[in-house]
């Protein structure tokens, strides 16, 4: 099977480069943590408790009107299949812990995933491409309201939604925006911005891939405070900080371009060369070059590459997907070789050259 066919099959809604500010914002995610009143939280639950919670949730989901959900029990999946769910951002790494009895309910288009028996009984998650805070929240809120009709949530008039971790108590909501901030990183401004944002009740984290390797210049901005602010206030704060960051990133890009156009071009085109001509491509290098090529496209320096393909590559270059495609476990060396092939294939430069040759010989 070709990479293209494989990727088309595995593609999930949020990977498409669309939505507002899709050049800088990759995706928007809302997560709501909920628990059932009458069962201990997963941290102290027995297998039986976990089964009961899972059953209650499956029943509640069946009565929902607009969406059809598929229930997937983690224990029924191979380790590789579980990893794929994590790499697609549909479940958290905690959910796939084999000692737990986690499962996930996935909507057909995979924009909604409901994790069951993670740290909390229920974690409703909605991911949208680009900058779509309000749309993602509306969706999550609606799922929550529909579930609540049939479930007895743990809720307190003072503390709000009761969660396992006190850092989620209140709204139980974590809203986050995933952003590509290469210019703020190159100019080292991000180092000053991160602590400033943390003092506003928001957190900035790098997004990590295999092991501790950071995926190139991708940051996740999310709310840290869940108590004492309404959902609307939290979302408004996140929105204004995100917009602020987008504006700063844009300005830094202009500045970089004005100050050292040739040096910047050199760097970006070298990265493109690495992605399109390597035979061995480690994930850290791939992530760095991918970031550069994205920046090159945004600045109009690199042309004729579709941003959606770059979003796909970011996901499909991960070890789980590479092995899924190869249909076997691969050593890290073999993965680096297959990754190089994936990039050459998807960025299409060598392929179109090869096609031309084929056409000539016909």
């Amino acid at each position, binding site marked *: 099977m070709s990479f293209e066919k494989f990727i088309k099959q595995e593609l999930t809604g949020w990977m498409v480069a669309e939505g507002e500010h899709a050049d800088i914002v990759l995706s928007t995610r809302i997560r709501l943590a909920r628990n059932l009143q009458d069962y201990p939280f997963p941290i102290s639950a027995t297998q039986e408790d976990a089964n009961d919670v899972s059953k209650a949730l499956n029943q509640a989901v069946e009565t929902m009107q607009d969406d059809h959900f598929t229930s997937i029990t983690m224990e029924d999946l191979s380790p590789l299949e579980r990893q794929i769910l994590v790499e697609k951002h549909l479940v958290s790494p905690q959910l796939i812990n084999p000692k737990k009895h986690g499962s996930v309910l996935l909507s057909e288009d995979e924009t909604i995933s409901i994790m069951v028996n993670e740290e909390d009984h229920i974690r409703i998650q909605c991911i949208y491409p680009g900058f779509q805070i309000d749309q993602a929240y509306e969706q999550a809120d609606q799922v929550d309201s529909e579930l609540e009709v049939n479930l007895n949530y743990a809720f307190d*008039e003072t503390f709000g939604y009761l969660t396992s971790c006190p850092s989620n108590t209140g709204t139980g909501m974590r809203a986050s925006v995933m952003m590509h901030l290469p210019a703020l990183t190159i100019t080292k401004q991000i180092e000053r911005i991160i602590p400033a944002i943390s*003092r506003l009740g928001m957190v900035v984290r790098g997004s990590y891939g295999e092991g501790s390797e950071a995926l190139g210049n991708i940051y996740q901005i999310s709310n840290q405070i869940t108590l004492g602010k309404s959902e609307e206030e939290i979302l408004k704060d996140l929105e204004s900080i995100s917009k602020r960051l987008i504006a700063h990133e844009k300005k830094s890009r202009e500045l970089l371009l004005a100050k050292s156009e040739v040096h910047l071009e050199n760097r970006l085109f070298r990265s493109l060369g690495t992605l399109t001509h390597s035979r061995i491509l480690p994930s850290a290098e791939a992530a760095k070059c991918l970031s550069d090529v994205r920046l090159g496209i945004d600045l109009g320096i690199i042309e004729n590459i579709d941003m959606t393909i770059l979003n796909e590559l970011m996901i499909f270059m991960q070890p789980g997907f590479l092995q899924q495609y190869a249909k076997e476990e691969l050593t890290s060396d073999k993965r680096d070789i297959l990754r190089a092939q994936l990039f050459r294939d998807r960025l299409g430069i060598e392929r179109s050259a090869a096609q031309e040759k084929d056409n000539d010989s016909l």
Partner: protein
Amino acid sequence: MLCENCKERPATVVFKQETSNDVIERHLCDKCAFYSQTFSFSPDQEPLSIQQFLAHWLGGSELFPEQKADERLPDGPKCPSCGLTFHRFLDIGKFGCAVCYETFKGQLPRVFAKLHNGHTQHRGKIPVSLNERFALKRKLEDIRTKMQEAVENERFEEAATLRDEANQVKQQLSDGGDDQHVI
């Protein structure tokens, strides 16, 4: 000193702005500093993990100020439902069940204030079923006020009707309001 810009929060950052012939100092709070054009303060705060945070906090023995530092900390209250002690809660940074919140109610405002920028009370979404309970409680209060008036004006028949109505609402409230969609 208050922030020169919003005059609401304390000033924590000094900004030096260069103009054509002078350097102006501005004293701003974190928020205003962030929203002003330049980023020019030094990073000193890294977000801590919740376990690190609670462990660190416990290490400061701030919770039991009457305790001598070398004495072992008491376990504090214990959750009757899941058995978690408050001491253990600080260790693992997680509640074991919904009842823990009730059990540790006395200690929690301080925990939450530290974690959520001083906030201790939920503001935001409330489950619809709970909204119904709120509505029932308000309805009950209304009925009781009217009953009082009726009694004072010696309209005893009306008062009796209102009393029956109040009992009905009380019944709905004690049923948990689960299957009853009142209003």
